């Protein structure tokens, strides 16, 4: 790609093609192979999550909302059938955590998509068109960035009311400024390239250039960063649910299991431990995958 070619030439002016190839091969053998371990682990964890979410009705031993009045707040292994114990309504914790995966994944993926779809066009416009358009979009973004993601999502959910869709919208909008800034900075670099000038010279409109040249060159980086924001979205969802603004009952989400378990932390720590653990694993999985992807797709290492 043009962008990376230019960078490579600037970065290693004295290095020939043959040497670059040698370096690439060497790095694959040694240091770089180790790079695949976290990405493999991360991907495996994410894959597991997706499978668990999809097959929740078949994997979960009980219905996530079925209540057993004689099994209230029982420890893990109770009655030989509640592997992770039960909650204050006598519901099976394992089943709830399994079903909770659905909410977390749905919110994680969908809200990042919302943020991406809303933020990237604005960012590219700001970076490519410059001038007053940029000033307007960026000041608006700065304003939104003044609020932490969770707080912004909290304000939006409070205004709209708690439901799955509102939560997705709220977190998506809260993530939007991050995508705007990133897309703008990418567009700023890309617009200086010769091929953009060439596209202009042959009479390409702004819209066409942004769609056909700027966006495709920015998309890979954006997708990698989006992966990282899935982790943020999952954390924010848990935060919202913890504060009682997430999906309404009886739908289980890790955040509201954690929140409901908080008052029983002394007698029944399994409620908070396992739901907290699930959140931790999910965030870890997406962070591992995102970090590794970013390293792997770093332009300086793609020597070809």
């Amino acid at each position, binding site marked *: 790609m043009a962008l990376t070619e230019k960078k490579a030439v600037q970065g290693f002016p004295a290095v020939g093609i043959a040497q670059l190839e040698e370096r690439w091969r060497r790095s694959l053998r040694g240091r770089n192979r180790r790079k695949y371990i976290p990405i493999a682990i991360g991907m495996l964890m994410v894959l597991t999550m997706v499978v668990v979410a999809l097959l929740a009705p078949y994997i979960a031993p009980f219905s996530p909302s079925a*209540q057993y*009045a004689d099994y*209230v707040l029982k420890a893990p292994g109770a009655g030989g059938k509640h592997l992770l114990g039960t909650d*204050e*309504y006598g519901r099976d914790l394992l089943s709830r955590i399994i079903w909770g995966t659905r909410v977390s994944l749905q919110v994680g993926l969908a809200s990042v998509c919302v943020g991406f779809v809303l933020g990237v066009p604005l960012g590219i416009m700001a970076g490519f068109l410059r001038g007053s358009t940029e000033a307007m979009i960026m000041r608006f973004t700065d304003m939104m960035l003044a609020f932490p993601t969770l707080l912004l999502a909290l304000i939006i959910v409070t205004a709209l009311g*708690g439901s799955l869709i509102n939560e997705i919208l709220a977190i998506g909008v809260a993530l939007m400024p991050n995508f705007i800034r990133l897309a703008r900075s990418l567009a700023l670099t890309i617009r200086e390239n010769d091929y953009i000038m060439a596209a202009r010279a042959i009479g390409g409109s702004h819209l066409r250039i942004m769609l056909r040249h700027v966006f495709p060159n920015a998309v890979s980086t954006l997708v990698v960063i989006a992966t990282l924001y899935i982790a943020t979205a999952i954390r924010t969802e848990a935060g919202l649910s913890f504060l009682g603004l997430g999906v*309404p*009952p009886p739908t289980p989400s890790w955040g509201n299991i954690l929140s409901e378990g908080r*008052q029983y932390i002394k*007698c029944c720590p399994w409620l908070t431990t396992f739901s907290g653990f699930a959140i931790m694993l999910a965030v870890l999985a997406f962070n591992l995958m995102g970090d590794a992807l970013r390293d792997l797709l770093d332009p300086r290492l793609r020597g070809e």
Partner: protein
Amino acid sequence: MAPKPWLRLGVAVLAVVAGLALLQPAPASAARKQILRIAHKEPDTLDPHKSILGQTQALVRFIYRGLTRFAIKDGKVTTAEVEPDLAESWTVSEDGTVWTFKLRKGVQFHKGFGELTAEDVKYSYERQLQREKGTRFAKNLDVIKEITVVDPYTVRITLKAYDPVFLLRTVGYQQGYIISKKAAEQYGDQFGWNPVGTGPFYFHEHLPREKVVLKAHKDYYFGRPQIDEVHWFDVPEDATKLIGLEKGTFDIIVPNTVTADVKGQVEKMGAVLDKRGPGGQYRFYINWTKPPFNDIRVRRAFMHAIDRQAIVDTLWPGGLANLAISPVPPGYFGHIPVEMPEYNPELAKKLLAEAGYPNGFKVENYFITKSFAYPKIMVLVQEQLKKVGIDVQLQLVEHPTYHRNIRKNLNPFVLYGGTRLTDADVWLHLFFHSGEAPDPETGNMGTNFAHYNGIDDLLAQGRQTRDPEKRAKLYHEAQRRIMRDAVCLPIVDVPNMSARNPKRVKSPFDPEYGEFALHYFYNYPEMLTLVQ
């Protein structure tokens, strides 16, 4: 250099031990003065007529008294009968509309505000009747036409009409507290934190977000209490209260909610859970004007679909609360157990099919508050209703929003819990009289969420009836009618509960409902004694 890590560890351990030692309460100060330490929430004011908060109503009982008080009978405090308090005796005219109270002589107000006179009684009631800014309980006194000071120790109250519960209104509770006229006029708006009453304790100081300090009133007319000082701490978290009780920082704690877990911890540390009736009754009102609930078969199906026993067993196991047995809870005058609908999902399904809903129906946007036991009961009920095909989509909202929405009739059935003056007349009027049906059009903020009008005649008769037995019979009939028309499903009677360290504080009443109290706390805090 080997010992260095050990040295560090040693210092750390020492620091922790020293820190723990500092956490222990200093025993020296406690030995000198008898201080009762209570962990509750901070009151918003100490003006007894201006707050409906539970903690305020609990604390003002220390400071103020009324003309009458709830009677102590056979070692138990009742809430359906009264005995003299500030009034020594009273007489009532033939037609029951003129009450003459003889005041106890020599009753002293706190902080040298002088002796209680009929003027103070007149002032205390009239500031509420005149709807002075901030007063909350005027409605309970609206029956009064005129208050006359006959002489300093005699006050005559003329009513607009006969009122069977008038004496209950004069009890030291909410509207019934007598405050010092002199102090109220002197402090004006500042009276809330300069309270002056005739109760066993006087207000000493208020440290915001920390505690309120009360001291024993040495001229209290029933004798100075044994306790020298009461420290009322503001502790928001139940976990903190429990640790405090265990460590001896607090002698009595009032948890926000007493769960089985809290009960377990209290028992484990050897503390006592004092249960006071009548507490609050959680129940469903079914709005019989709202389709499909305007069909009695649907209402009956709703009732048979709800497993009340499972709700009590799940949320209040081990006798923490009682399965409700009537729409008027025990402890109220006129209460009688009536037959409750049994849990029978099959019958519920059959009734729904008969009513034209063989596959059930959906209730969208059902609002429920996040506070107290409301959301917990609703989560249980939601799952039970799902089994008969009624799909309720919950929307969690803040408590004030919930109260607004249920008065806009947005919920076809309303979950509500509460306490009122302990007479079926008051209770049934507020919850089942057609005049109390909430209506956003007219601004009626009543609590007859069922929009029921089937017992208006009985309530009107009750107002005319002097014979208590006959009056009670009317209310018995009313309770049966409410259940017959399937407009209300009583679920559980939850007592007011607090945990007490019996090694520090003794109460003369049995922890198991030895006391009935509307104050959310002990009815007679001056009867608590500290162990030397």
